[in-house]
C-alpha cells in the first residue's frame, strides 16, 4: 500500500515479501472480529505488503508430506486467515492477523494467538452481538485486548460509551475507541490504543 516502509525494505512495491535484512524482532497483534466487520480492510489500510493469506485447516490431521499436490489434497475444511506486515524502526516487524472469532475456530485461534502481544477486537456498531463469541475467545486465550467500534454509515448513533461498555460487558480498563478501518490513520490510532493499554498494564512479575 501507500506507505514507504520505515526501514530498508525494498520489496514492498514489487510484491517481494522477503523480510528486510534489518528485521530483528517479529511481533504480532490479532485483528479479531466476526465476518464482514472490517478486519481485512483495517489490515490493508496499514500493511506495507498487499495483505496475504494462508489457507488453514479447521480440523488438523497429521499428513505425510511428499509433494505439494499431496499436501493440498489432504486438506480438509479450510479457512483463509489474512495477514499484513508493518516494518517499524529499530528492526521491529509487526504482523497483523485477521482472525475470525467463531467457536469452531478455537483450535486454530490458539495456534495463531500463541505469543501475540494482544488483540484488537472489531465490533460492527450495527450488530454488536456478532462480536460476543470473539470477545469470549479472546478472554479465554488470556490475550489483553482493546475494542474498536467500526462505524458504518447506517449505524445507530445514539449509543453512549457507557451503553456500549455495558452491552459488551467490558472491564473498566479495557480501551474502547471508534475507528474507520478504511482510513490508515484511524486504524493506526486503534492499534495505538491497544499498544498503549499493553504498556499501561501492570507488568506481570515474571517478565
Amino acid at each position, binding site marked *: 500500500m501507500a506507505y514507504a516502509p520505515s526501514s530498508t525494505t525494498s520489496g514492498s512495491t514489487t510484491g517481494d515479501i522477503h*523480510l528486510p535484512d534489518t528485521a530483528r524482532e517479529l511481533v504480532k497483534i490479532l485483528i479479531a472480529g466476526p465476518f464482514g466487520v472490517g478486519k481485512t480492510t483495517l489490515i490493508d489500510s496499514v500493511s506495507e505488503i498487499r495483505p496475504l493469506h*494462508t489457507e488453514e485447516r479447521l480440523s488438523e490431521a497429521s499428513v505425510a508430506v*511428499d509433494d505439494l499436490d499431496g499436501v493440498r489434497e489432504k486438506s480438509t475444511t479450510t479457512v483463509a486467515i489474512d495477514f499484513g506486515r508493518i516494518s517499524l524502526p529499530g528492526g521491529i516487524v509487526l504482523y497483523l492477523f485477521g482472525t475470525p472469532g467463531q467457536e469452531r475456530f478455537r483450535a486454530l485461534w490458539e495456534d495463531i494467538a500463541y505469543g501475540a502481544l494482544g488483540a484488537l477486537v472489531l465490533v460492527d456498531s450495527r450488530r454488536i452481538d456478532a462480536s460476543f463469541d470473539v470477545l469470549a475467545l479472546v478472554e479465554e486465550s488470556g490475550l489483553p485486548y482493546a475494542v474498536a467500534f467500526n462505524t458504518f454509515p447506517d449505524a445507530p448513533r445514539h449509543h453512549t460509551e457507557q*451503553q456500549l461498555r455495558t452491552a459488551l460487558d467490558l472491564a473498566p480498563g479495557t480501551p474502547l475507541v471508534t475507528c474507520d478501518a478504511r482510513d490508515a490513520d484511524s486504524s493506526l490510532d486503534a492499534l495505538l490504543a491497544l499498544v498503549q493499554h499493553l504498556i499501561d*498494564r501492570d507488568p506481570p512479575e515474571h517478565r
Partner: protein
Amino acid sequence: MTGRRGGRPLVPAYLSTGGVARPSRPHLERLTVLSGSGESAPADLPAAQLALLDALYGGSLTVLEAAALLELPVSAVRVLAAGLLDRSLALARAPIPPAEHFDPDLLKRVADGLRALKHH
C-alpha cells in the same frame, strides 16, 4: 441492548501468553524466520521441500509468509521446514532474539513506530 453472557470471569493475567511466554526449545512458530543455509539442494530432495528452499533463495521468510507464497497451510510448511532443518539446508531463527524476551521497551518502541507512521 442485551449484554453478553454475564458473570463470566475474566482470564487471570498470569495465564496470558502476552508476547513473552515462549518455550525455550526450538519450535516453528508462524513468525519463525527461515533462511537458506547456502548448501545446494541434494538431488533426492522431495519436490515440496525444494519449493520451500527455492522460496528462500531471495531472502528470509517467516513460516507464515512461506505458507502464503506456497499456498499451503502453516502446518504443512512446518513439516517441510523441519525436513530442511534436519538436513541443514535451512536455518530457523525465533521471532524475538532470546536475549530480548524480557525487553520492557519493546511495546514502547512499537508504539513510537506506529505513531511515526501517522500522516499528521
